[in-house]
C-alpha cells in the first residue's frame, strides 16, 4: 500500500464516520432532548434528567386523538390499497407490450407527482360533489399514490411466479377462483404483508398530501408540525422517541423476517 493510498483510506474512514454522524445525530439529539428538564427541547444546557415530558405526552388528549386519526386513516388506506394495488399488478402483467408500457407510465405517475399536487387535485375534484377535506379525502388522496407502492411490490413478486402452477391447478379441476385463492394468493402473501406494512408507514408519515385534504382533522404528522409553530415542548420529543423506537423495532423485525423468508424461499424454490 502506497502512502497516497493510506491517506486516501484515512480520509474515507473519516468521511464514513461523518456520514454516520450526520445520519444519526438528529435522531439521537431529538431523543435525548425528551429527558431534559428544559421547557424548550434542546440538549444544551442540560437542566436535569426527567421523565416528566413522557407523563405530559401521556396526558395530552389532543395527541391521542391525532394518533387515533392517523390509525383510522392508515387502516382504510391499507384496506383500499392492497386489493387495488394487487389488481393493478395483475392487470399490468397480463397486458401486451405496447398497452403495458402505457399502463405502466400511468400507474407510476403518482410517484412522480409532488405530494402537494396530489392533495390539491383530490381536494378540487371532491369539492365538485360537495365533499370537503376530512377523513375520507385523506384516505383517498393517500391511497392514490400508496397503491403504486403496492403495485410495484406485487409486480416484483409476480416476476418470480411460475405460471405452470396455475395450469397445473386448472388441469386438476380447480375453478379460476380456486386457482387464485389457493395458488396465486398464497404465493403473493409475503409481498402483500410487506406492502401492508409499507402502506401503514407511508400513511402515518405522510404530511405533504395530508396537509391539503385534512379539513379539520389533525393526524399525527400535522399535530407535530403544528406544535413546532405553536409551542414546542419536549413532550413532542417524548412522542418522537416512542415513534422512533416503534419504527426501529418494526424495521429490524421486518428485516430479520425478510432474511429468514429469503432463506426459506431458497429452500422451497423448485428447480425447473
Amino acid at each position, binding site marked *: 500500500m502506497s502512502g497516497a493510498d493510506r491517506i486516501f483510506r484515512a480520509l*474515507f474512514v473519516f*468521511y*464514513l464516520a461523518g456520514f*454516520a454522524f*450526520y*445520519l*444519526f*445525530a*438528529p*435522531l439521537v*439529539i*431529538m431523543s435525548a432532548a425528551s429527558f431534559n428538564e428544559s421547557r424548550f427541547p*434542546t*440538549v*444544551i444546557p442540560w437542566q436535569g434528567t426527567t421523565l416528566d415530558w413522557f407523563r405530559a405526552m401521556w396526558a395530552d388528549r389532543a395527541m391521542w386523538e391525532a394518533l387515533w386519526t392517523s390509525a383510522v386513516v392508515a387502516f382504510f388506506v391499507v384496506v383500499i390499497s392492497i386489493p387495488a394495488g394487487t*389488481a*393493478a399488478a*395483475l*392487470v399490468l402483467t*397480463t*397486458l401486451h407490450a405496447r398497452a403495458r408500457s402505457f399502463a*405502466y*407510465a*400511468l*400507474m*407510476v*405517475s403518482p*410517484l*412522480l407527482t*409532488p405530494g*402537494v*399536487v396530489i392533495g*390539491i*387535485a*383530490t*381536494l*378540487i*375534484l371532491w*369539492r365538485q360533489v360537495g365533499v370537503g377535506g376530512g377523513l375520507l379525502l385523506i384516505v383517498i388522496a393517500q*391511497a392514490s399514490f400508496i*397503491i403504486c407502492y403496492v403495485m410495484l411490490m406485487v409486480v416484483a413478486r409476480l416476476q418470480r411466479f411460475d405460471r405452470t402452477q*396455475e395450469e397445473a391447478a386448472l388441469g386438476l379441476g380447480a375453478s*379460476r377462483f380456486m386457482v*387464485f385463492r389457493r395458488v396465486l394468493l398464497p404465493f403473493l402473501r409475503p409481498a402483500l404483508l410487506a406492502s401492508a406494512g409499507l402502506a401503514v*408507514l407511508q400513511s*402515518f*408519515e405522510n*404530511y*405533504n398530501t395530508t396537509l391539503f385534504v385534512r379539513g379539520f382533522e389533525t393526524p399525527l*404528522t400535522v399535530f407535530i408540525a403544528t406544535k*413546532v409553530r405553536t409551542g414546542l415542548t419536549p413532550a*413532542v420529543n417524548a412522542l*418522537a422517541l416512542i*415513534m*422512533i423506537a416503534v*419504527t*426501529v423495532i*418494526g*424495521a429490524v423485525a421486518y*428485516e430479520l423476517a425478510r432474511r429468514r423468508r429469503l432463506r426459506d424461499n431458497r429452500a422451497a424454490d423448485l428447480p425447473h
Partner: protein
Amino acid sequence: MRELFQRFGGWLASFFLILVAIWLVGMVLAPNLMTLDYALRPNLPPARIGGPEDSYSLANFAYLANEAVHRTIFFKTVWASALVTLTTFVVCYPIAFWMAQRATRAQLSIALMALIVPFFVNEVLRTLGWYIILAYRGPLNAVLLGLGIIERPVRWQGDLGVLAGMVYAYILFMLLPIYNAIESLEKAQIEAARDLGAPVWRIHWRVVIPHAKAGIATGCVFTFMLAAGSYVAPALLGSPGSRWFTEIIYNWFFEGGDWNRGAAYALVLLALCLLVVLVTLRIFRVNLADVAK
C-alpha cells in the same frame, strides 16, 4: 385484456378491472383534469360561477409569470432543488460505491440497516431533529462556539437549514438506486482499469459512472421531485427569506382563498417535475420501467 379474463375468469377479472379503473380514472386522471379546469378559470364567488365571466383563460398562469416575488420564489425553488440534488449525489456517491464494491458482507448489512432505519422514521420527526440541532441556542452553535470556530451564534435557519434537512431526508432515495447500479458492475472491470494505470477519478468517470447512469438518473429524478415538492423542511427549517414554492401554493388555498390560482401554481410545479423527469430520462437514455423499482 383477453388474457386477463382467460386467466382469472369473468368475475375476478371484472373485479380487478373495476378496481384499477376506479384508481386510475377516479383517483389519478380525474383529479388532475379537474385541477387543470380550475387553473384555467377565474376565481369567482359562487353566485357568478357559470356566468359570463366564467370562461377559460391563461390568466392564472400569466399572474405567476408577472408576479415578481412568486416568480423569483419559483426559480429559486428550481435551482435550490437542483442544488439539493447535486449535494445529495455528492454525499451519497462515495458511500454507494463503497457499499457496492468494497464493503464486506457484514459491513454491507450494517450499512444497509443504518441507512434504512432513519428512513423509516417520520419525515416530520427527522426534520424536527434538525430543527433542534440548528436552533439559535442549539447544540450546533454551542459546539462551534465552544471550539472557537465561530464567534457569534449563526442563524442556521434559512437556506442552509433547508439544504441540510432536505439532503438528509432524501439520502436513501439517491443512495439505493446508485448502490444497486454499481453493485452490478464487475469488480474485474475496475481492476482492469487500475491495471492499465488509470487514476482513481478516471476510473470513476469512465467506468463506474457510465455503468451506473440509470441508477444515478433514478436517484436524481426522485430527489429533485421530492425536493421541489417538499413542504416540511422549508416550513420548519426555513426563514421568511427562504420561502419555497409549495408554501406559496399553500397560501393560495388556505390564506389567499384563490383555489384557481393555487391550482395553476400546482400545475406549474407538476409540469416542472414531469419535465425534469422526462428530460433526465432522455439525457441518460433510461426507461421509465428502470426508474420505479
